[in-house]
């Protein structure tokens, strides 16, 4: 089993109030030096079977038609081995 990650972010020209709210809060919490924050979604997919070109093509299609709304969002598909949570 392998893990494929799809990152979905709002297109740069679309207002991201969530990211902005985070950014605005940072100085109050004592964190300086962050000039911009964007918030998006991360999907971790566990794929049965090999992650070959065919599988990736299907996942790309899934991202394009379903996981992202390309009217407003961009996405990237990545094969990953590191797991969130492994580091701490």
């Amino acid at each position: 089993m392998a893990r494929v990650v799809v990152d979905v972010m709002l297109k740069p020209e679309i207002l991201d109030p969530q990211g902005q709210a985070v950014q605005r809060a940072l100085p109050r919490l004592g964190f300086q030096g962050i000039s911009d924050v964007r918030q998006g979604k991360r999907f971790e997919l566990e794929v049965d079977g090999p992650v070959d070109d065919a599988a990736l093509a299907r996942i790309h299609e899934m991202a394009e038609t379903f996981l992202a709304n390309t009217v407003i969002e961009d996405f990237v598909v990545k094969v990953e081995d590191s797991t969130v949570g492994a580091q701490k």
Partner: protein
Amino acid sequence: MTALPSPATTLDGGPSGRGNIRIGVVTFPGTLDDRDTQRAVRLAGAEPVELWHRDKDLKQVDAVVLPGGFSYGDYLRAGAISRFSPVMESVIDQAGAGMPVLGICNGFQLLTEAHLLPGAMLRNNHLHFICRDQKLRVETDRTAWTADYAVGQEISIPLKNIDGRYVADERTLDMLEAEGRVVFRYLDMNPNGSLRDIAGITNEAGNVVGLMPHPEHAVEPLVGTGRTDGLGFFTSILKKLVDAR
């Protein structure tokens, strides 16, 4: 205030009368305002017909309303999962063939996800759910659902959502304006950051309308905001369908 036919002056007999106008109301998992929409349809004098997300069968209704709620929890994006329901295949087909379709709130979100209407809905700019009595200006009476209103008329109906910010690229927005396809605009305050204060739009043919506020919650003087400004949606469609017969 709005001059609307009262339920007493229904156009074509009650639900039991012959030749009823049948308006379908779709229930998806997580739909909330389906019963309220059925009630509004009934109060306007038409016959509400329950439609189920798993059935392609539209039961020969004359028009369809996609009601508000949180279909599939609005997980992923509002309307993104329900857009792929079997019933939507038929709705998309029939909408293309000219059947009147109204998407309210979650229904509007669904219509954009299904590309029956352009643009997309995003999280409100203030990031909160907002529930308020919202003033709107009617921008066109040339849709199937707004014929009973006058252009420029101001109405107040409840707004309640967290993903209500309408966005589209400039070209699309200009096109909507140029073609007179902005149906409602927010007045007094823009409650969510929608571009150009857009509260509702229609497709080229004018049979598909989507809007964020809830006309079905403004059909009785007693409950909700105590206004009946929303009844016009349901009487408009009823009249149109009766005339078409």
